[in-house]
């Protein structure tokens, strides 16, 4: 199993967000007054409390799936000769198996290591990024609301397959170019 990387509780991006938060908060306090400041904070505290149980569930799902994933089985299904069916299976795998960046890239890299097709891996990462339910339910929905999330997911449904097919076409083009180069032999690689 690839090593699992830890989330750091405070890194440079959190620091940047914290700095922006403090600066924007100070601006609101001075320009719009204390009442507006408190109104904003109390609404946000409510949103945070609303998110907490979802985020905890999301973290537990990520940890449990990393433990339980039948990696060998999936890799067999999405191998290099898997064709369009392989892309479809990679798509469905990304929908069923949730995860965070902590888990998704080690899993994708493990797929590659046991012979999965690059197109299928691109589908897997793209589908997880755009349609993964864990991310949408835990993070996106509290911020952006159900209408927006459903709308975005509907228009995103075909996108992972488009990316996977493009990746396969690119690979084929690169392979073809390397082949002609190899034949003429006048260009060093």
């Amino acid at each position, binding site marked *: 199993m690839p090593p699992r990387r830890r989330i750091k509780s405070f890194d440079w991006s959190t620091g940047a967000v914290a700095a922006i*938060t403090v600066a924007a908060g100070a601006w609101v306090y001075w320009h719009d007054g204390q009442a507006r400041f408190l109104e904003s904070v109390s609404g946000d505290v409510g949103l945070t409390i609303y998110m907490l149980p979802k985020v905890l569930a999301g*973290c537990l799902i990520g940890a449990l799936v990393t433990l339980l994933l039948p990696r060998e089985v999936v890799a067999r299904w999405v191998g290099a000769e898997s064709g369009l069916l392989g892309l479809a299976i990679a798509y469905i795998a990304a929908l069923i198996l949730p995860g965070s960046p902590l888990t998704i890239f080690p899993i994708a890299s493990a797929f590659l290591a046991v012979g999965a097709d690059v197109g299928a891996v691109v589908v897997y990462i793209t589908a997880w990024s*755009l349609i993964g339910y864990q991310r949408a339910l835990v993070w996106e929905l509290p911020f952006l609301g159900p209408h927006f999330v459903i709308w975005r997911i509907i228009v995103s449904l075909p996108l992972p397959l488009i990316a996977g097919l493009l990746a396969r076409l690119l690979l084929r083009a690169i392979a073809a170019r390397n082949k002609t180069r190899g034949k003429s032999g006048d260009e060093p690689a």
Partner: protein
Amino acid sequence: MSVAIDILLWGIVAGLAAMAGMRGRVVLSGALREGVVDFLALIPRMVFGVIGAGFLADVLPQQLIVSWIGPDSGLLGIAIATVVGGLTPGGPVVGFAIGVTALKSGAGAPQVIAFVTAWSLYAIQRFVMWEIPVMEARVVWLRAISSLPLPFLAGIGAMLIGKP
């Protein structure tokens, strides 16, 4: 809605925990501990992300946002949103927080969909911290190039379909 989502998520947790439990109690408690540690580590990001988004919506110049990525900004607005989204650093909170801030400040929904899509696919920090160290360079670049058209397709698709 919120309760239904909580029930769904915790139902999944219970199902997975039962499967892990069948492999032994030590395995289960180890996984649960990992999950809780991740959760605790995320709390500061979450709090700053949520509160920061609220303040920023008050601070940002609305006219500028409306003219750049407002509902009438069309394809140019989608292009701007795509570039900004790709350059926005990662973390689960940042992109969605900026998206809702933009929406509150008058951005068009298709433009915000293009932004969220580009951010989801490219988030610079995720590339550097997670993808490049773990994956082969060849695959990382192939994925990056194959994903280039997607934010545009998402934004244009959202314009064509219209709000459901």
